[in-house]
Each structure stands twice: as structure tokens, then as C-alpha cells.
């Protein structure tokens, strides 16, 4: 018999601390859906996704009820569409995004990711076509997510791609201006992108992956925060508390992953050990940092506190899962985290501090709203800075930034649901235009030569 104290602890996590599994994501290879005719290729894509994922939502909802664990999202990730669509020689890839949307609707999933291109070393013709299609494709769809990998430690930084992405983000913001430029929340620009990430907007099914896999993303900032409320010791004790809590959260994710994999007859891929916040009060990564002793997230000391948290989450989680992957660490999406929103609103949390924080956490500048009239070159330069941090430190970094059409610094934007709300953050106005328009590729750093 399990002891009562443990049962009540789990119950408390569920009732009071927002414990949940954030997502069960089915990765599906679409490599066999390539066709010289784009219409045929789109039909193959739709058919294959529907065939593989037809039972996903039903099975996950059954697990949710049987085990009493909320599983917030059911998602699908697919092979980067720029690879699947290449054989079609299509110049506009919007129909492929529409096919993904139709498949997402048919399977009733929350998101589908993989309208993606990997261009860290250079572009294929189809990569260029996909990137140019993003503003229209994401404006015409609701649940399709897109990502572009523009840099890697091995290849360096593709500055031509980064220059393109600044324009793409601006155009996408304009195309979705009626809804606070929400399209940009579905687009993420990566360095060192993981190929098995279950979280959106960056999920896709990498080329080294199996035909079909189940990946699970856990969550649980509220549980960690509550555990730290009872910890009065030094920072070693804080790290130990986070590790123990992350272990429990991850074990739950591992169980859900194993059961889902078994019932769907699809191999288990990875558990992503991420602390993913939501805008709900008490489900915030910023509040964890404040619980450690910071007056406000963003003050001096925030980077150190986040480094401790990120490392302890990984150490606690890694023993709880047979395969760990994806992003695995703490997320710091500004609009999706009540504490980050508050810290940004009172300007304690600046974009420069967020950039420093991305050097020690699992992702990057995430869900940051900036003024709608921000020049494309500045957006590109922000991406370049993030890519440099990722490339030099051999880690994943990413940028999901929303230049909200018609909004300026001092205003706030409401995205709704899990995407939350955000104050428009100030950027440095001086221009990096010449630097961005030099183009070319920043060479891979010396630490890439490990062989």
C-alpha cells in the first residue's frame, strides 16, 4: 500500500499546484508523402496523418481520466515540410499548411508542428519557398506551427536566413494584424534545434526519427514553487528540493508516455523535462526564481537563480525517464508566465536581462511582444544575438517575437488562453542594418571541431 502522505502530496499537486502533463505529441514521418504533384502530396500528407493519429486524442483522454492527470494538449509533429514538398517544386507552400490544418481538425489535436525548414548551413530551393510562404500559410491556418533552424554549432550562423526571417516576422505580424499579430506566436526561429521536441511552436519530427513516435512534455512550475516555499536552507538545499520535485513530475510524464505508447502501439520517443509555465497564478517560473529570494524576476541574480533551477530540473528528471530529449529545462516565455508579465510590466525584466537568461535556460527569447514599427533588421539582429549564444554554448536557443501591429511601448497585448498577455517591451533603437545586410554565414566556432 502506498502511504497516505504520498497520496495526499500528489492530490495537493493536482488540486492546488497545477500539476499536469503539458502535451502528448505524436511525431509522424511524412518522407513517403513526397510527390511531383503538390496536390497529390498534400492528399498523401492528410491521409497519412489521419491514419496514424486517428486515435491519439481518444486514447490520451482515456489515460487522462484513468490516471487522474490533466493532459492539457494533444499535438502532432511532422517531418519538416520543406523536405516533403521539395519534390513538388511548388513555389507557394501554403496548400501544404492547409493540408496540415485539415489533418489537425480531423484528428482534433490542439496544434500541428512541422511547417519547418532547416537552413543552418544553406537553403534548398524548397527551403526558400517555405520561408517565403510562412506569412500567408500561418495567416490562413489556426493550429499550424512553423519553425526555421538558422544556426548550429557545427555549421555556424546563416545570416542570409536570419535577414529573411526579420522580414517574414514583420509580414506575418501584418497579415494577422486583426488578431494582435498572433501569427508570430506560431513561428519560432532556432539555433541548434532538437528534432524530438514535443513543445510548440518548435515541434517537428526530425529525419533521424522513427516512422512514428510518442513524445511527452511535462510541466509543473507550481509544484516546484510550492516545494520551495517549505525550503528554508541554503542554495544547495534549494537545488536538492528542485531535483526531488522534478523527479516526481517526470516519473508521472514517463508513466503517461509509456501507457500512451503501449495503447497506441507506437514507440515511445522521449520525455521533455521542461518547466512550462501558464499564465495562471501559481504556475510561473518567475515566481520560482522569486521564491529563491529575488525581490522581482529580472533583478540582478536572476541569471544565477535560473541556472540553478535549469540544472536541478535536468538532474532530477534524468533519472526518472528512460529517454530524455527535446528542450528539457526551464522555459521563460514572457506572455505565458504571470510572474514574467508582472516583472516586464514594471520594467525590472528587460530584453537584455532576458537575453542573458537564455544563456542558461532551455530555450530563448520566447513570446516577447515588441512595437509594431520595429524595423525588420532589428528583429533579425535579435535573432542573430540569440543564435550566437546558442552556437557558442552548444545549446538550443530560439526567438519567438511578436511585433504587434499598431502597438507601441507602454501598451499591452492580450493573446488569450495559454499564450497569455504581454506588455510591449522596449528595444534599443540604434540600427544594425548594415551588419544584417552583409549576409553570408558566420563560421562555426572553434568548439565545433570536436572530432
Amino acid at each position: 500500500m502506498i502511504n497516505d502522505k504520498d497520496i495526499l502530496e500528489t492530490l495537493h499537486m493536482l488540486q492546488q499546484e497545477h500539476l499536469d502533463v503539458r502535451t502528448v505529441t505524436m511525431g509522424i514521418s511524412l518522407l513517403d508523402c513526397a510527390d511531383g504533384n503538390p496536390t497529390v502530396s498534400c492528399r498523401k500528407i492528410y491521409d497519412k496523418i489521419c491514419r496514424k493519429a486517428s486515435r491519439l486524442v481518444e486514447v490520451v483522454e482515456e489515460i487522462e481520466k484513468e490516471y487522474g492527470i490533466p493532459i492539457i494538449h494533444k499535438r502532432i509533429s511532422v517531418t519538416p515540410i520543406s523536405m516533403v514538398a521539395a519534390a513538388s517544386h511548388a513555389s507557394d507552400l501554403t496548400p501544404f499548411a492547409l493540408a496540415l490544418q485539415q489533418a489537425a481538425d480531423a484528428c482534433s489535436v490542439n496544434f500541428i508542428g512541422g511547417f519547418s525548414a532547416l537552413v543552418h548551413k544553406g537553403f534548398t530551393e524548397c527551403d526558400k519557398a517555405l520561408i517565403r510562404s510562412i506569412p500567408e500559410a500561418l495567416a490562413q491556418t489556426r493550429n499550424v506551427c512553423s519553425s526555421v533552424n538558422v544556426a548550429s554549432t557545427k555549421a555556424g550562423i546563416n545570416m542570409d536566413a536570419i535577414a529573411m526571417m526579420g522580414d517574414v516576422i514583420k509580414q506575418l505580424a501584418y497579415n494577422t494584424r486583426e488578431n494582435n499579430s498572433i501569427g508570430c506566436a506560431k513561428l519560432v526561429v532556432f539555433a541548434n534545434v532538437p528534432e524530438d521536441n514535443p513543445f510548440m511552436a518548435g515541434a517537428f519530427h526530425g529525419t533521424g526519427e522513427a516512422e512514428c513516435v510518442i513524445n511527452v512534455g511535462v510541466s509543473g512550475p507550481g509544484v516546484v514553487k510550492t516545494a520551495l516555499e517549505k525550503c528554508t536552507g541554503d542554495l544547495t538545499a534549494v537545488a536538492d528540493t528542485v531535483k526531488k520535485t522534478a523527479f516526481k513530475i517526470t516519473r508521472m510524464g514517463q508513466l503517461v508516455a509509456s501507457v500512451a505508447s503501449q495503447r497506441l502501439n507506437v514507440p515511445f520517443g522521449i520525455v521533455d523535462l521542461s518547466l512550462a509555465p501558464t499564465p495562471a497564478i501559481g504556475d510561473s517560473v518567475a515566481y520560482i526564481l522569486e521564491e529563491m529570494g529575488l525581490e522581482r524576476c529580472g533583478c540582478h541574480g536572476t541569471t544565477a537563480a535560473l541556472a540553478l533551477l535549469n540544472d536541478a530540473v535536468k538532474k532530477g528528471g534524468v533519472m526518472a525517464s528512460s529517454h530524455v530529449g527535446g528542450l528539457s529545462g526551464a522555459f521563460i516565455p514572457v506572455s505565458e508566465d504571470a510572474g514574467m508579465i508582472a516583472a516586464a510590466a514594471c520594467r525590472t525584466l528587460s530584453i537584455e536581462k532576458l537575453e542573458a537568461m537564455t544563456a542558461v535556460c532551455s530555450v530563448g527569447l520566447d513570446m516577447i511582444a515588441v512595437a509594431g514599427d520595429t524595423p525588420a533588421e532589428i528583429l533579425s539582429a535579435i535573432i542573430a544575438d540569440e543564435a550566437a549564444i546558442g552556437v557558442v554554448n552548444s545549446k538550443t536557443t530560439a526567438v519567438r517575437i511578436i511585433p504587434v501591429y499598431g502597438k507601441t511601448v507602454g501598451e499591452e497585448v492580450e493573446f488569450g488562453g495559454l499564450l497569455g498577455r504581454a506588455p510591449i517591451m522596449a528595444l534599443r533603437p540604434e540600427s544594425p542594418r548594415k551588419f544584417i545586410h552583409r549576409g553570408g554565414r558566420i563560421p562555426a566556432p572553434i568548439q565545433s571541431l570536436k572530432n
Partner: protein
Amino acid sequence: MRAIITVTGKDTVGIIAKVSKTCAEYNANITDITQKVFDDLFVMIMLADTDRLSVRFTEFADRLSALGQANNLDIRAMHEDIFDAMHKI
């Protein structure tokens, strides 16, 4: 399978009777019960064998949850494995 049924909420007369009645109605065999009242808060943990349930487990869990809502209580029936996974190595 074995299920852990937890009941929390304001203490009133007849909570155990109501939950036990629903378990019997759906053929869930209660194998262990612990129950305490802290101040005015009622906390009960039941272990039940659900192998011979007359309905699917998810429906049984729904019925208990509905019973809880009707009586201002939080009632959850959860697969035992979730607690094992989280608290045992």
C-alpha cells in the same frame, strides 16, 4: 487494476456511506480505507479493486466525480500506478 479513491471536502454526515454505495453499485471492491478529519476538513483514501467493475473505469471515475460535485466534495478515482510511479523508485 487497483484504484486509489480520494475524497476531500467539508465534513458532513454520511460521506463514507455515499462513496461506498457508489462503489458497490458499480461492483468496485473496497480493500482498504483510511479517513481523518482535520478541523472541519474531511480526508478519506480508499483502495479499491476495480477488475470486476460493471462499467468502464473512466465512467466509474466520472460517476464518483459527479457524486463529489453534488455533495461539495472533491472525489477522484485514479489508477494506483500513478502514485507508485511518483513515490517509489
